[in-house]
């Protein structure tokens, strides 16, 4: 199964939190992979496990979390590595941009210090070299007057600037994989467009794989090569972007697309998905989506659906998929 071209292969990833109420699953049996030069989008509502999935890849899960399954980066299983080995990779071969540009930079250090830090740690540059390199990186991400910015503190920059600094930090060691966790949610559309363009441009230049986490289907459509849809800790559908928007198979994906107001079509009727995402500790029996699903069958209430391949490179975790004639024997994990 080892794909020469893939940077990241996640298989059967499960993350559980130890809480006072007992073990709570946050991610269950998630599998996906990212190729070089590819943008994989993970979509889903807040709390469905997107961030936890990406943090597992970074080895940054909180102490109360336990991960199982396998995360292979460049062929090596990250979950089997020691903390020190993972640290060597973090910020070096895999790096991450976080959701909140306002709070992701340390307020008491200069921008320069923070950009130079990974260069010194991983690329073992001298202070001077690191400085020059950092200036180059800031320039690369489109920050005007980088030498002046180096001396400034995060609070002196606007949100868009800060997010660009974060990107500069993430790219400083030319990672093979960039994980961007909702990098533009806190920004305005005009700035969001700038940032997304930048990420795509850099991807083209360096050929890194990108995991982009978002819940905005518009962002997905404009950036993704392939899409993973998550619901309540599980991957419910995976497809290439085109297919997913044209021919969504999972009722949740369909609902998601219908509940987005359209900018271009004023006659478009909003069709919200009723109900709300279940809490991790209170998963309904059977398919987690069945209480909100219009097509729910009796079977859905008792039996958790398997993953069905419903088209080339297109899988769906829904019993409806069984009826699709392309009965590639899907593997069941949940």
């Amino acid at each position, binding site marked *: 199964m080892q794909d020469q071209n893939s940077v990241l292969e996640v298989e059967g990833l499960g993350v559980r939190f130890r809480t006072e109420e007992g073990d709570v699953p946050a991610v269950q049996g998630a599998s996906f992979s990212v190729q070089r030069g590819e943008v994989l989008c993970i979509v889903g*509502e*807040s709390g469905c496990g997107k961030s936890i999935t990406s943090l597992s890849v970074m080895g940054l899960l909180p102490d109360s979390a336990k991960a199982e399954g396998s995360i292979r980066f460049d062929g090596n299983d990250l979950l089997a590595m020691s903390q020190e080995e993972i640290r060597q990779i973090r910020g070096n071969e895999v790096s991450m941009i976080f959701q909140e540009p306002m709070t992701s930079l340390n307020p008491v250090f200069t921008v320069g210090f923070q950009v130079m830090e990974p260069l010194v740690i991983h690329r073992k540059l001298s202070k001077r070299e690191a400085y020059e390199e950092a200036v180059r990186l800031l320039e690369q991400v489109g920050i*005007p007057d980088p030498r002046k910015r180096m001396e400034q503190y995060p609070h002196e920059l*606007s*949100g*868009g*600037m800060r997010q660009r600094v974060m990107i500069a930090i993430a790219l400083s060691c030319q990672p093979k994989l960039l994980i961007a966790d909702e990098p533009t949610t806190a920004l*305005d*559309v*005009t*700035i*969001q*467009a*700038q940032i*997304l*363009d930048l990420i795509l441009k850099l991807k083209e230049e360096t050929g890194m794989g990108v995991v982009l986490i978002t*819940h*905005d*289907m*518009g*962002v*997905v*459509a*404009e950036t*993704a090569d392939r899409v993973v849809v998550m619901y309540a800790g599980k991957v419910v559908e995976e497809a290439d*972007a*085109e297919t*997913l*928007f044209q021919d969504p198979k999972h009722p949740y994906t369909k*609902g*998601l*697309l*219908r*509940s*987005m*107001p*359209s*900018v*271009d079509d*004023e006659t*478009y009727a*909003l*069709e*919200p*998905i*009723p109900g*709300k*995402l279940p809490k991790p500790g209170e998963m309904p029996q059977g398919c987690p989506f069945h209480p909100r699903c219009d097509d729910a069958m009796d079977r859905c209430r008792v039996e958790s659906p398997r993953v069905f391949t419903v088209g080339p490179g297109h899988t769906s975790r829904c019993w409806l998929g069984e009826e699709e004639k392309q009965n590639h024997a899907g593997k069941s994990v949940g």
Partner: protein
Amino acid sequence: MPEKVLAKLENVKKYYPVRRGLLNRVAGQVKAVDGVSLVLHNRETLGVVGESGCGKSTLGRTLLRLEKPTEGRLYFNGTDISSLSARALQPFRNKMQMIFQDPFASLNPRQRIGDALEEPLVIHTQLNREERRERVMGLLEEVGLRRDHYDRLPHEFSGGQRQRIGIARALALNPSLIVCDEPVSALDVSVQAQVLKLLQSLQEKHGLTYFFISHDLGVVRHLCDRVLIMYLGQTMELAPVKELYKNPVHPYTEALLSAIPRPVPGRKRERIILSGDLPSPAKPPKGCPFHTRCPEAMTVCKEIRPEWKEVAPGHQVACHVR
């Protein structure tokens, strides 16, 4: 569109002082709202769009007289309320209400929902305990919550439910005007649609007027009758919703519309990517505030603030270029 004027703003300004230095002297001003004139009709929904920090919320709060305008006149139902005292405003309070952006932050985390909803009734009506309780139960059902939610605390609700509570509180006093300050931006995609539908149905039922603040042009298109585009405390463009989306006049409006990611893959449209960041509202540029980022800026834009002029019936814009 119903023609009756509900509220009117004439050159409304709201400046916040920036204090610094010895003895805390006022050293400058944030011009959060800088000369806005507009009319709000009965039963319409006016969408207000703009980047973060451009003064949308301030304008909304000033409209409700939660802030006293620094300058300008503010009429509600024909009465000038721009400088009334807190006491004199009391009779107007139940006619104008607000729904807040962050439903959680807008609820006292230690107050039970029932009490929070009863509070406006305690302040404004003579109803007794039982009557208030009945009214609150009715409100809960009206916004799609259950009667047994009465005793819960805010944190026991989901985001969508909390926003319903915010809506119920705004409805408690039968207002005619509701300022909705980004009521859905904190909600999940699937829940956002639920709340928008609720707002629509309530408007029909109660004949409400909405002042709908948002930065999501999709939502605005869906819900609003007219749209106001703001930038750095100033109005850039105002037009009926269809007109605005079809014929944007202001370069800023154009850029905004083009930057919205469309959920249609493959169709990578030509986006107008603006360069640079939003200037600080404490030091807004001279002339047209947008000229620093405007791809079509001319010399005159740097010097003279453009007039607020009508380019088509009901379509106003402030731009030298067009």
